C-alpha cells in the first residue's frame, strides 16, 4: 500500500462515525466468514471452520446482550445485575419452539410432548406451552416474555423510585428467583437439565453446517440492527433525557419529564434486545437451562460492559467479545490457571483503563491520526478528565 492510499484510507475512516465502523465491520466479517467457510476446502488455511463459525456466533449473541446492558447501565445508570433473566427468557422461548420441533424424534417418541414431560408422566402440554410450535409465536414471545417481565419489574421498581444499589440487588434477586423457579421440575421447563437435544429450526437441521452459518449471519444482522437502533436512541433527545436521568433524576422531574416512564421504556427495550440475544444463542449452543439465570452470569455481563467501556455502544461489544474470547482461549491454553489470567485481566483493565478499553481507544486512534472527532469522543475525554481530577464533588442529584 502506498502512502496515498493509506492516506485516503485514513481519511475515510476519519469521516466514519462509530456506527458506520461497527456495522461495516460486522458486514465485512459476515461476508468474509461465510465466504471462507463455504468456498475453501477444510484443509485450506483460509477455511473458516464450522467450529469458529459457531463460536463467533455465540460471541455475537454475547455482544448483543452486552449492548442491552450498556443501554441501561451506561446511558441510564440502571446497573442491572439481572439481565441474564431476560436473556434466559428469550432463550427459553426459543428453546420451547425448538423442543416442539423435535416432534416424535424424542427418545420416547411422543409426538406431542417433549421428553421430559413424558418422563414426568404429564399427559398434556401445560397451557403456557400453547403456541410454542409456531415460529411466529416464538418470535413474538422472544420479545414479549422478557418485555413483560421488564415492564412489570420496571413499573414496580421505577415508579416507587427504587434506584442505585437497591435496584441492582433487586434485579439480582429477580434473576435468582427465576433460576430457582426454573430449577423446579414442576415449572414445566425441564428443570435443571433445561431444554436440549434440539433437532431443527424452521425446517433446517441444526447439525447442518449451513444452518450454523445461517444462524451466525442472522445474529450478525440482529446485532447490526440493534446497534443502529441503540445508536438512534442514545443520539435522540430521549437519549439525552435518560442520560440526564442517570445523573440527576429529580432534576429531570422538575423539568417536567417523568423519568420513571423513560426508565421503564429503556429497560423494556433493553430486555427485548437481551431476549433476542438469548433466542439466537440457544440454537447455536444447543441447550438452555436455568444456569443462564444464575446471578453470577449476569454479573459477568456487567463485567464485559465495564471492560469494554460503558457509555459507548461499541465498548460493550468489544468487551463482550474480548472477554469471551479470552475465556475460550484461556480455558484451553491454561485450564488450571485461567482464572488467574481472567481475574488479573479484570483488575488490570480497571486500573489502567478507567473508561474501559473503548475509553482508551480515542487515545490510540489519535496517535494514529484517526481521531474521528465525533461528539462521542469528546464525551469520553471529558468524563475521563473530570474523574481523574480530585475535585470536590458533592452528591450530584437533587438540590434544595
Amino acid at each position: 500500500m502506498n502512502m496515498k492510499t493509506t492516506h485516503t484510507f485514513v481519511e475515510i475512516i476519519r469521516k466514519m462515525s462509530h456506527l458506520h465502523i461497527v456495522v461495516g465491520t460486522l458486514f465485512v466479517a459476515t461476508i468474509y466468514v461465510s465466504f471462507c467457510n463455504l468456498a475453501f476446502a477444510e484443509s485450506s488455511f483460509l477455511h473458516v471452520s464450522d467450529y469458529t463459525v459457531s463460536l463467533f456466533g455465540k460471541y455475537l449473541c454475547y455482544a448483543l446482550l452486552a449492548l442491552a446492558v450498556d443501554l441501561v447501565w451506561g446511558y441510564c445508570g440502571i446497573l442491572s445485575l439481572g439481565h441474564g433473566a431476560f436473556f434466559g427468557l428469550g432463550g427459553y422461548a426459543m428453546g420451547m419452539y425448538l423442543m416442539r420441533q423435535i416432534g416424535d424424534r424424542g427418545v420416547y417418541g411422543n409426538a406431542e410432548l417433549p421428553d421430559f414431560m413424558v418422563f414426568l408422566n404429564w399427559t398434556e402440554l401445560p397451557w403456557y406451552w400453547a403456541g410454542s410450535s409456531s415460529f411466529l409465536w416464538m418470535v413474538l414471545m422472544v420479545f414479549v416474555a422478557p418485555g413483560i417481565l421488564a415492564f412489570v419489574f420496571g413499573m414496580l421498581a421505577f415508579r416507587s423510585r427504587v434506584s442505585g444499589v437497591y435496584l441492582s440487588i433487586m434485579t439480582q434477586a429477580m434473576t435468582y428467583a427465576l433460576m430457582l423457579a426454573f430449577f423446579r421440575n414442576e415449572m414445566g421447563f425441564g428443570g435443571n437439565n433445561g431444554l436440549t437435544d434440539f433437532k431443527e429450526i424452521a425446517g433446517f437441521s441444526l447439525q447442518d453446517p449451513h444452518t450454523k452459518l445461517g444462524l451466525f449471519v442472522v445474529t450478525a444482522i440482529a446485532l447490526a440492527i440493534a446497534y443502529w437502533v441503540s445508536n438512534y436512541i442514545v443520539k435522540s433527545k430521549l437519549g439525552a433525557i435518560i442520560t440526564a436521568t442517570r445523573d440527576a433524576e429529580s432534576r429531570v422531574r422538575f423539568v417536567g419529564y417523568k423519568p420513571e416512564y423513560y426508565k421503564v421504556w429503556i429497560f423494556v427495550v433493553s430486555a427485548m434486545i437481551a431476549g433476542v440475544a438469548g433466542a439466537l444463542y440457544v440454537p447455536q449452543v444447543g441447550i438452555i437451562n436455568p444456569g443462564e439465570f444464575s446471578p453470577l452470569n449476569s454479573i459477568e455481563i456487567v463485567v464485559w460492559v465495564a471492560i469494554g467501556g460503558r457509555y459507548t455502544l461499541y465498548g460493550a461489544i468489544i468487551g463482550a467479545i474480548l472477554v469471551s474470547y479470552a475465556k475460550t482461549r484461556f480455558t484451553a491454553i491454561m485450564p488450571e490457571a485461567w482464572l488467574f489470567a481472567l481475574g488479573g485481566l479484570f483488575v488490570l483493565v480497571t486500573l489502567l483503563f478507567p473508561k474501559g478499553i473503548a475509553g482508551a481507544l480515542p487515545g490510540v486512534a489519535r496517535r494514529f491520526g484517526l481521531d474521528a472527532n465525533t461528539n462521542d469522543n469528546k464525551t469520553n475525554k471529558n468524563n475521563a478528565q473530570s474523574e481523574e481530577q480530585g475535585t470536590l464533588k458533592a452528591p450530584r442529584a437533587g438540590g434544595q
Partner: protein
Amino acid sequence: ADTIKVGVLHSLSGTMAISETTLKDTVLMMIEEQNKAGGLLGKKLEAVVVDPASNWPLFAEKTRELLAKEKVDVIFGCWTSVSRKSVLPVIEELNGLLFYPVQYEGEESSKNVFYTGAAPNQQAIPAVDYLMNDIGATRWVLAGTDYVYPRTTNKILEAYLKAKGVKDEDIMINYTPFGHSDWQGIVSDIKKFGSAGKKTAVVSTINGDANIPFYKELGNQGISAEDIPVVAFSVGEEELSGFDTKPLVGHLAAWNYFQSVESEENDEFIAAWKTFIGDEKRVTNDPMEATYIGFKMWAKAVEKVGTTDVDAVEQAMIGVAVPNLTGGVAVMNPNHHLSKPVLIGEIQEDGQFEVVWETPDTVIGDAWSDYLPSSMNLVSDWTAPIKCGNYDVKTAKCSGQNF
C-alpha cells in the same frame, strides 16, 4: 497423526471442580501408565485438557473444540447430567466418543456415549432392598436436591416401594435447592417423621456440597445411624475426606466400588494413584473406578480393532471385559452400560467405607428403568439387528435417532 489424542472434559473451576478435578487427574494417570506400557497401537497417547468451568453451554463449546479443532479420538468427561445433555448433541453430530463415569438417572442411551457409572438399578434399588431386608426399614424419607437425578431416582424408588407395599403416609419426599446449607428444619422434620415408632431410613440423593451440612445437622440433633440410617448415592470417599466424619459413622452409601475393598487390582490402583498425585492421604472413589474401567475398556477395544475410528471402536467395545477394582470383571453390555457389583458400605471414623452388604453377582446397568411407565417398554441395544438406543419392544420401533 503420530499420537492418539485423548480429550479430558472435566470442570477444573466453578462449583463442580471439587468433584471433577480428581477425574481429570485419573485420566492423566491412566494415560501416563498406558504410555509407560508402550502407548496404544504403537503411538503415544496425548491428553488434551480443557476447562469447561462448570458452565453447561461451555461444555458444548469445549466438546466442539476438542472434536473439531483438536480432533481427539476419545473424550473422558462430564459429571453432572446437564453437562452430559449439553455435550450429547455435539458428540453425536461430530461422531465423537464419550466415556461418562458417574452414576446417573438413566433414561438415556447414545451410540456415542459409554456409561461406566451406575444406572439407578445398580445403586438405588439394591440399596433400598438392603434397608428393607437387612435393616428392617418400613418408613422412608426420600431426600434429594431438586434436580433431575434425584427426581428420577426418587420416582423410581417410590414406584418400587409402593410395589413392595409401602403406604403413602410412610414415604416422605423432600427436595432442597443446590448447595442448601441450612438443614435445621428438615432434619427436625425427619426426626419427627422417624419417631412414629416404625423403623425409618433416609434415602439421600442430596448432591455435592449440601451433604456435609446435612450430616452435621443430623449429628447435632442427635440422630444416629442406628436410629435413622441414611443411605446416600453421592457421598463417597472423596466427599468424606473434606469432612469431620464423626457424626456420620454408621451411615451408609451404595456404590459399585469402595477404596476399602480388598483386591489385587485395587491395591495397585490405590498405590499408583497416591504416587501419581503425590499425596499419601488422597483417596480413591467410585467415579475413579468407572474412569479406570472405561479407559481400560477403550484401550482394549482400540487394540482389538487396531484403529481409533469411532464406529469401529464403538462396536468393538460391546462385550469387552476388563477386571474391575473389586475383584470381579466388568463387561460392557450392548446397551453401553456396564455390569457392576453393588456394594453397601458403612461410613467409618477414618472416612472409609466398610462393606456391609453386596450383591452376589454383578448387575447389568439398565438404561431405561422398568419402574417408570414411560420407559418400561424401552430397551437399548447397540448390536445388530436392533442397533438402537431406545427401542420400543411393544411397537418394535426406535425413536429419537439421528443416525
